C-alpha cells in the first residue's frame, strides 16, 4: 500500500494541482465563451432578419420547440422584428447548420445564414456567398411564402414565382440540401411560434 502510494504520488499531486488550476481558469473564461456564443447568434440574426441593424442592441429571447430545439424571438426593444431558429441537415460533405429567419407574423421566410458547413471549397461552400443567401430574402419587401415547399431549379426562375430558387452552378447537391433543410423545418417552426 505504502509502495503503491509512493509510486503514484506524483500523478496524484499533479492531478489535484492541475485540476484546481483548470477549474479556476474555466470559471474565469467560461462566461466570456458563453457571451461569444450569444454574440455569434446575434450577428447571424443581424444578417438574417431585416430591420435588425445593431446586433448589440437586439433583444433575443428563447422559445422552446417541440423537437427540443430553440427558436429566437427577436426584437429591437420596442417592436417585434421576427423569429429565427437553427436548423441542421445533411449536405454534400457533412452537416450544414443554418439560421433561418421568419417575419414577425411567422408567415414568411425573410432570410438565412449559414452557421456551419463542410461543403467543398470553391463549389458547395458557395452557399456562404451573399449572392446565394440573398435568394432567400424578402423580394420587394414580400417574404417568401411557406405554404408550399421551395423547389430548386437550374435555370433562371420565372419572374414572380416565389417558390423557385436557382441552384448554384456546380453545387446542385449543396443547393438542394439547403432548400431541403428549410422546407423540412420552416413551416413547422412557424406553426409552433405563431
Amino acid at each position, binding site marked *: 500500500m505504502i509502495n503503491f502510494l509512493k509510486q503514484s*504520488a*506524483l500523478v496524484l499531486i499533479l492531478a489535484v494541482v492541475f485540476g484546481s488550476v*483548470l477549474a479556476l481558469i474555466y470559471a474565469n*473564461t467560461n462566461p466570456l465563451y458563453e457571451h*461569444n456564443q450569444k454574440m455569434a447568434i446575434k450577428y447571424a440574426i443581424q444578417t438574417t432578419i431585416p430591420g435588425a441593424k445593431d446586433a448589440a442592441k437586439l433583444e433575443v429571447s428563447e422559445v422552446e420547440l417541440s423537437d427540443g430545439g430553440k427558436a429566437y424571438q427577436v426584437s429591437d426593444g420596442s417592436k417585434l422584428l421576427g423569429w429565427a431558429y437553427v436548423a441542421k441537415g445533411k449536405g454534400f460533405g457533412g452537416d450544414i447548420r443554418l439560421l433561418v429567419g421568419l417575419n414577425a407574423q411567422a408567415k414568411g421566410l425573410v432570410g438565412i445564414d449559414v452557421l456551419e458547413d463542410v461543403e467543398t*471549397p470553391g463549389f458547395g461552400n458557395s452557399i456562404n456567398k451573399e449572392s446565394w443567401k440573398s435568394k432567400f430574402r424578402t423580394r420587394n419587401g414580400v417574404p417568401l411564402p411557406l405554404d408550399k415547399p421551395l423547389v430548386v431549379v437550374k435555370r433562371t426562375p420565372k419572374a414572380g414565382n416565389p417558390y423557385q430558387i436557382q441552384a448554384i452552378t456546380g453545387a446542385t447537391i449543396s443547393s438542394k440540401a439547403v432548400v431541403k433543410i428549410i422546407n423540412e423545418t420552416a413551416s413547422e417552426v412557424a406553426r409552433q411560434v405563431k
Partner: protein
Amino acid sequence: MARFINGILPENPVLRLVLGICPTLAVTANIKGAITMGLAATFVLFCSNMFVSLLKRFLQPHLRILVFTIIIAAFVTIVDMFLKAYMYEMSRQLGPYIPLIIVNCIIIARAEACASKSKLLPSLGDALGMGLGFTLALCILASIREILADGTWLNMRVMWDSFTPWTIMKLAPGAFLTFGIVVGINNFIRRKIEERKSSQP
C-alpha cells in the same frame, strides 16, 4: 542556445523529423490559422518541457508517459479555454485541432527525448526552438496554399486580378502535395550543402 537553433532548421520537427503531421496537413489552409496553431503548440511545448524537466527526479519510469500526458493535457485545455474566450472565431475555425494538440507527437517526443533527461534551460531552449520550427514550417505550407488557393497572403491580395484560384490547394490533396514538395526541396538543399562540405578538404 544550440538547442534552440537545432529545432528551427537542422532538426525541424515537421520538415526533418516528420512529426506532428496531422495538424500540419489540417490547419495550413490559411496563414492566420497556421500561426495560431503554431503558437498554441509552442506554448504547450514550452510549459510541458518546463514541468517535465523540473519534475524529472520524481518520474517513475513506468509512469512517465502518464505524467507527460497529464501535464500536456492540462496546458492544452488552458489554451483551448483561452481561445474560446478571447479568439472565438479562430477557435471555431481550428475546431478539434486545438484539443488534438494533446496527442501531438512533437510535444510528447520532446518530453521523452529531451526534457526528461536535460536541465531546465536546455529544455526550455529546445521547446522554443522546436515550437518556432513547427510554426515556421506551418507558415511556409500555409503561405504556399493560401497564395495558390485564394491569391491572398494574410488576407492581403498578392496575385494579379485574373489569377485563377487553385481550389485543390484548399483541400486535403493540396495539403499532401505541398507538404511533399516542401520536404523534398528541404532535403535537396540539405544534400547540396552536405556535398559542398564533404568536397572541401
